[in-house]
């Protein structure tokens, strides 16, 4: 067990190093934070030309007492952008290790504070969505496998494919329109007043997300169950006179959960920062929308901080999924 955890920690470190390195590089090559900090002059060769004596530093755009290039240069130094990318990456990495995620270029707030504020909302949405997904998919999957080919199975197949084909934003808008705007059954936007209002206002978005994943889970579980139901031990259990319910839940379900929990792990990771469309539709100030804003504005520290959090979440969740495998199948334990 100790070795298992140690391996996972090493894996986490490797994942974080490569993910942040790629993110860091991509951000720096594709965008320039200075443009958003001091204005469009930072993006063109203006200062290079001033330095080369090709033109004069005019006193126009931002502050008429000092030259623009002077200001841009100051900003560069303030935000550490005057150093080479590699050096900045390692500086950033060093800070991360000491627990400092940096400060936002835009708001000047510490990144850790921004994440602490946004992440819980996204996590809550994700957890609620997964609970709804499992609560729907497992019973429906079991029943549709039990009655494969019958009316209920066909109906759920159609419903599943429907849910799989409809994009989140379309489904979200329909649900919002019907349940929150036309009939005021549930709130249309996030309400941060208390834990109760938070849960209450997340019901709709979590249902939209959850049903989408539930459709995938249901298909996987149904297929795996149909395979398991062909197994001799299922016939044996029937020959022993066990009830259908007992056979489905106590014999067939557990060995049929592998695909489902694999996808569960992957989708949980993806949902941590990936539910931005739903966050947008239901006005949830979560980490997903925060990342989009930060990327658009080249707010590197916020983007990188979020990447670290999400990648860590991904690896940690899949660590637990691997633990689940060993719980599900004693043969895995032995190897």
């Amino acid at each position, binding site marked *: 067990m100790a070795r298992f955890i140690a391996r996972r920690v090493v894996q986490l470190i490797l994942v974080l190093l490569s993910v942040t390195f790629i993110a860091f590089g991509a951000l720096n090559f594709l965008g320039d934070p200075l443009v958003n900090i001091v204005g469009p002059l930072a993006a063109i060769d203006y200062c290079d030309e001033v330095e080369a004596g090709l033109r004069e530093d005019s006193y126009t755009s931002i502050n008429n007492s000092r030259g623009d290039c002077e200001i841009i240069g100051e900003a560069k130094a303030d935000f550490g952008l005057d150093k080479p990318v590699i050096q900045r990456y390692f500086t950033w990495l060093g800070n991360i290790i000491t627990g400092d995620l940096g400060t936002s270029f835009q708001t000047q707030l510490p990144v850790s504070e921004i994440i602490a504020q946004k992440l819980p909302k996204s996590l809550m949405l994700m957890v609620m969505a997964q609970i709804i997904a499992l609560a729907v998919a497992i019973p429906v999957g079991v029943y549709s496998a039990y009655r494969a080919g019958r009316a209920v199975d066909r109906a759920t197949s159609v419903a599943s494919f429907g849910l799989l084909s409809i994009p989140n934003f379309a489904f979200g808008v329909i649900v919002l329109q019907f349940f929150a705007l036309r009939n005021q059954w549930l709130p249309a936007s996030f309400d941060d007043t208390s834990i109760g209002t938070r849960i209450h206002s997340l019901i709709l978005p979590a249902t939209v997300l959850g049903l989408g994943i539930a459709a995938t889970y249901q298909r996987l579980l149904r297929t795996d169950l149909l395979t398991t139901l062909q197994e*001799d031990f299922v016939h*044996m259990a029937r020959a022993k*006179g066990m*009830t259908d319910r007992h056979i489905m839940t106590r*014999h067939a379900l557990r060995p049929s959960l592998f695909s489902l929990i694999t996808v569960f792990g992957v989708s949980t990771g993806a949902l941590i920062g990936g539910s931005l469309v739903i966050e947008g539709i239901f006005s949830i100030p979560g980490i997903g929308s925060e990342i989009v804003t930060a990327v658009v504005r080249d707010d590197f520290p916020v983007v990188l901080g979020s990447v670290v959090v999400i990648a860590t979440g991904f690896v940690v969740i899949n660590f637990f999924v691997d633990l689940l495998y060993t719980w599900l199948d004693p043969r895995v334990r*032995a190897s």
Partner: protein
Amino acid sequence: MGDPQLTVEDLYVRFPTSRGTVEAVNGVNFTLEKGQMLGIVGESGSGKSVTAKTLMNLLPRTAEVDGNITFEGDDVRAVAKERRKHFWGVKMTMVFQDPMTSLNPVKRCGEQITETLRYHLGDDKATARKKAIDLLEQVGVPEPAKRVDQYPHELSGGLRQRVVIAMALACEPSLLIADEPTTAVDVTVQKRLLDLLDGLRRDRGMSMILITHDLGVARGRCDDVAVMYGGRLVERAPTETLFADSRHPYTEALLRTIPRIDQPSHTRLEPIAGRPPELIDPAEECAFAPRCRYAQPDCLGTIPPVGGVRGQHEFACFHPANTERGRQALDANLAAGQTVTGLQIQANAGVN
């Protein structure tokens, strides 16, 4: 002797498929007396496993079943709802071919035994566990107290099949159907398992149906042997009669495929020529005719009905082996060098 414990009358089982209807079982009749052991012998696709599954109510929903099955006064195909709950698994139960797959890999062996005890007999956890250990001991599992907490993958094939047997016997059924119980285990373990089953059966006065493709397995253990071919019962007789004086050409051919200790060593075993019969929409003829050395024109016109001495030695053949009619048919075919179906036969084959 009174009513037999199990009566199967005119059993038909069909599976509609996209290629046509598979006629898996075609009018099978047999009875089983209490405490007797019946062997059902046949090759793959002969309908023996489907017959067993019909008895156990294990057929897929698509199967079309017709006929009467009576077991200890109950109509097996229409057991009353409140009796259904504790019918299969309690009164009759089944052991499958492959012990590697007939145990649930994610449940402890003990739990797979106790779940029946708890459900059918309402035993509490501790009682059921004690009984499970006792059962494992009875089927010859060493260190039973340790085994109940082990998972199937921790046991060898032979031990697993013993666990399966213990599982099947937990509720003391009066009929055990064993579907090729030793096919998947080591030859050295086979005999021990069969002897174990036979011993347990005698101790408990339990009836048993032993399904096998190996006549040798049936010999010496079964009271009666029924031979199935193409979904029909082609011969049925007390075991020794069947071995000494078989009537159906298929039985005779099967006997030639097993080595015998009274033959000189290196005696050639004779394979049965041809392929197993087509079960999808079969022709109205004797299913064995294309492979039969005795085949005559009348074999192709109608399906031979089951004749012989009812309850003693029954067989379904117009030209039975070891009879005058059979000898004439065989001599005629040998003279022609082939049968009516075009099967090439040689004079030296099989005539002692």
